[in-house]
């Protein structure tokens, strides 16, 4: 990423963002504390552990799994996960026959309430272009080698549909509790660039 110092006369984003915030606060359109709240919420509280809880519950509770696949938004609300960008969560399930992976080719739509803010690579134009063109190769480079017989389906998120992957439960995890299972689930597995391992 290019990151060069700005000449002194160039309005750096920092100052322009500050100026916009000041104007909106002055007009009482937003409050500084509200922005602080949002930032802290998404940086501190909302993250992939939300999605991991959803996955673990789906693994142990077949009825929940059914509701989740039928209506991701409502099922996630049962666990208290909703809010901005959570209105359009669509859950797709990995199977031995089909592996699913998510991208947003247009911008970076992402299920925030379940996964927090997107990681850098998700926003990277190279990921966005290559996962569509050569998913198997790119996944391999990212450390995920899938059996030839497993089909790969790429889901392109949009403002209307934010895809979330329900990974396969790893073998030999019968004795684990829901909480213990949740700890196994990584963000990358819920985007589909990894699988869950016990």
């Amino acid at each position: 990423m290019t990151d060069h110092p700005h000449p002194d006369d160039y309005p750096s984003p920092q100052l322009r963002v500050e100026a916009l915030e000041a104007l909106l606060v002055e007009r009482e359109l937003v409050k500084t504390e509200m922005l602080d709240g949002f930032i802290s919420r998404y940086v501190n509280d909302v993250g992939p552990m939300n999605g991991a809880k959803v996955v673990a519950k789906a693994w142990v509770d077949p009825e929940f799994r059914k509701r989740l696949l039928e209506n991701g938004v409502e099922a996630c609300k049962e666990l208290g996960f909703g809010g901005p960008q959570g209105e359009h969560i669509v859950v797709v399930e990995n199977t031995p026959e089909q592996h699913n992976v998510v991208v947003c080719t247009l911008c970076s739509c992402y299920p925030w309430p379940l996964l927090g803010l997107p990681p850098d690579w998700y926003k990277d134009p190279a990921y966005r272009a290559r996962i569509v063109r050569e998913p198997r190769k790119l996944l391999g480079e990212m450390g995920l080698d899938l059996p030839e017989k497993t089909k790969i389906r790429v889901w392109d998120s949009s403002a209307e549909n934010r895809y979330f992957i329900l990974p396969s439960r790893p073998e030999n995890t019968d004795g684990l509790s829901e909480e213990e299972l949740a700890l196994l689930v990584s963000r990358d597995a819920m985007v589909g660039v990894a699988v869950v391992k016990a």
Partner: protein
Amino acid sequence: MDIVESLGTDSPTSLPRSNGELVFKEPWESRAFGIAAALVELGVFEWSDFQASLIAAISDYEKTHDSIKEPYNYYERWFAALESLVIGKSLVSKQELDSLTTDFCKRPHGHDHDHDHGHSH
């Protein structure tokens, strides 16, 4: 930053606050994020409006750059989208924003905000 890194990106869903990686590289990125999130929450505009504006801002960049070779700064595009939306909705005017930004540029160093003083890199 070291603490976040030392707690590791390898452990699954390790640090929620890092999401495995640092979410915001600079403070202005988080402010730009927060402004957009707040305006949506307050119903000033819809997420879909913002999304459309972000797509347009990225597409503007891609008209003149090869984004694979010269990747854009995501939050810079985010802010461009936000700016165009708030100006489009007449919440603030471009002139006001330009003028206040210029005023801020003239602030002496050591001013009370703890924004980045570093032109050191």
